[in-house]
């Protein structure tokens, strides 16, 4: 499912408070099957943007097309949008409410047209995808689960409708390294299976390693967009260099100060390791 954003703006109606995120004249395109990262400081408008993409707010001006259809046009089927776009907000575990895990995961399927056995099969699939034993967990109360399990049930509830576009708002904030890797592996698998992924994150390493394209927001404006590597290289050349650099890029900067110049395309850990090997094992002086 491709997404086309044209001159999108959003203003909040009330007198300006300090934390109000607005968006100004954003245009970009996301291809079907892409894995897109959204980067930006707190309050840059990231959350507003994903709320607009999910049709949870209507833009002040501009248009969003999903597969060529304007999602804010009169007559556009909201329910189809809900089935197409899955959104996971921060703290997904607060969004659990049904009495059993099975009912909770099935919540979104109510309007999908699936019935009876089909629903159960879909719920089973979603829970098993998230690493649960379906029979064991289906009748448990979601509130009795551990924090990590709640999170996984919440994700199962979102993927149960098989959305073609999955949006995650800060999904790895606060996770420890292993949970973080597990989550990113899972998202990559979903992406490889054809789902378009949009992920908002503060974690530069995760964005650099996993996403294909990057959107950079600053104070409600889209200041850069493009293939992830290219965006990181451009961001490094900006004067306010602290914005959006990976740890590897920071080391490259430090090395450059000591007269060891590595290629500017070094963005990820793997790049840095390869470049250093090349430089230090003689290849660089050949």
């Amino acid at each position, binding site marked *: 499912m491709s997404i086309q954003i044209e001159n999108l703006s959003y203003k909040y109606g009330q007198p300006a408070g300090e934390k109000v995120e607005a968006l100004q004249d954003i245009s970009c395109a996301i291809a079907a099957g892409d894995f897109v990262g959204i980067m930006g400081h707190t309050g840059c408008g990231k959350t507003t943007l994903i709320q607009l993409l999910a049709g949870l707010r209507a833009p002040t001006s501009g248009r969003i097309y999903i597969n060529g259809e304007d999602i804010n046009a009169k007559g556009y089927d909201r329910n189809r949008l809900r089935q197409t776009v899955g959104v996971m907000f921060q703290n997904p575990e607060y969004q659990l409410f049904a009495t059993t895990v099975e009912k909770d995961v099935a919540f979104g399927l109510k309007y999908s047209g699936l019935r009876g056995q089909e629903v159960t099969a879909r719920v089973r699939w979603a829970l098993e995808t998230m690493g649960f034993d379906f029979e064991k967990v289906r009748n448990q109360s979601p509130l009795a689960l551990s924090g990590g399990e709640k999170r996984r049930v919440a994700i199962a509830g979102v993927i149960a409708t098989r959305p073609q576009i999955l949006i995650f708002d800060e999904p790895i904030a606060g996770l420890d390294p292993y949970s973080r890797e597990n989550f990113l592996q899972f998202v990559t698998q979903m992406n490889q299976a054809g789902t378009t992924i949009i992920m908002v994150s503060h974690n530069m390493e995760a964005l650099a390693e996993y996403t294909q394209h990057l959107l950079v927001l600053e104070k409600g404006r889209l200041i850069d967009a493009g293939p992830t590597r290219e965006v990181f290289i451009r961001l490094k050349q900006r004067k306010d260099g602290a914005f959006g650099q990976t740890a590897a890029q920071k080391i490259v900067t*430090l090395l450059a100060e000591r007269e060891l110049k590595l290629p500017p395309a070094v963005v990820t850990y793997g790049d840095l390791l390869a470049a250093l*090997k090349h430089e230090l*094992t003689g290849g660089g002086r050949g």
Partner: protein
Amino acid sequence: MLVTGKNISFTYDFGGAAFALQDVDITIAQGEFVAILGCNGSGKSTLVKHFNALLQLQQGALKVAQIDVGNTEEIWLLRRLCGMVFQNPDNQFVSSVVEEDIAFGLENYEVPRGEFPARVRSALALVEMDGYEKRAPNSLSGGQKQRVALAGVLALEPEIIIFDEATAMLDPSGRQEVVKIMHKLHKTGKTIIAITHYVEETVAADKIILMHQGRVLACGHPRAILTDLDLMKKAELIPPLPVRLYYDLQQAGVNLSNCPLTNEEFVEAICQFRSKT
């Protein structure tokens, strides 16, 4: 020793018999910067909640600043000496005005009202939030909220300051702000106990206590802990980037003189390596 704990064990009584803490021994010296490192569920937060008696000691012995934490008579003194900043910046404010929130602790210790303005001002100065007295905590960024929460703790002039995953919910710039203030306070002689799963935040500590599944896996200088790959794996953590680079380069035949912890050390080691060859 400012903190000495022996054989501390603890179980949350949710029916499940799993230990949240098991036979934990711990010592922390006056003026030390101690990082308690571990993944989710390793028991680190449970451990420090014993230091100011937010959790009651079930087994073992624990003394903090010469006070036995089981002694209910001295619990209030203990909590004044041992301040704590919590994980969620939104859930620790009692007032919608910064200065009133900072005054909350002062009121609890019956500090005369006349001293309030000066103490509030100096606490805010310590966290570099001068002039924010009249603001609403709600209108601040995550890093600023945590600094205001810290000011509320500092107004009571504690000896020990515990950061209970105080950076976990912040964005990178907010995290940097808080970590910077931690080190600044450490320089003024305060004992700092920082709980985290971000290994980068522990490299400058005097000591790391590494926890996993309710036990202390290891305790020692960051260099000894963070460069031990097996240990880090056992703790389900990923070593800092310079450490990973060091070992990966070693496999490629590049032997740096010693294992660096920070980016600066790493760059230094690379330069040394180059001048040698």
